[in-house]
């Protein structure tokens, strides 16, 4: 068993519930292969840095997976077939990151929110 970080972008037109359903579906795949999803993180609908298949935004989902490589192969195969998934990346890691980085990521995602809070502070 190895630790993997799996990040995927889903199409902008699908709802948050559908994204959730997709994530649960992927979770069952991993569990079916004898792995475990340690953490599931939904980043929300974020703007993409460039257009992918005419999408300007996308739902980002991060899965921290502890599973044998077979599960990852199956996971990626399913993602390739699924048209709702624009992109995915799987990175093997030594240890899962601490959640402290999450705040920084969220700031980058919502520049508008950041400025308003700064103004409020002033």
């Amino acid at each position, binding site marked *: 068993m190895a630790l993997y970080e799996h*990040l995927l*972008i889903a199409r902008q037109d699908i709802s948050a519930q559908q994204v959730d359903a997709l994530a649960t579906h992927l979770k069952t795949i991993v569990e079916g292969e004898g792995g475990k999803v340690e953490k599931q993180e939904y980043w929300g609908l974020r703007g*993409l*840095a*460039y257009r*992918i298949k005419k999408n300007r935004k*996308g739902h980002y989902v*991060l899965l921290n997976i502890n599973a044998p490589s077979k599960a990852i192969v199956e996971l990626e195969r399913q993602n390739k077939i699924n048209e709702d998934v624009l*992109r995915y*990346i799987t*990175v093997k890691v030594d240890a899962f*990151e601490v959640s402290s*980085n999450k705040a*920084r*990521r969220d*700031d*980058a995602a919502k520049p508008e929110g950041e400025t308003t809070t700064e103004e409020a502070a002033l």
Partner: protein
Amino acid sequence: MSHAGSREGGDKRRPFFRRKKTCPFSGAGAPKIDYKDTKLLQRFISERGKIVPSRITAVSTRKQRLLAVAIKRARFMALLPYVMR
């Protein structure tokens, strides 16, 4: 010729004094290079979206390699642009 000798002696005040820079990813409390941390990576790409050379950012050779991979992953996942105009 004598000037050259004195210059090599070394203690002439140099017109531009360059502060010794240290790698921002080395030492205690240094941030971890992570492709998901766009705010951090943004500091190491130029206005045009290019990776800034380590001779400017003072990132060590080893960390620069890791940084380059992280930036490329972030680009692939549309967290960072390939080009900015």
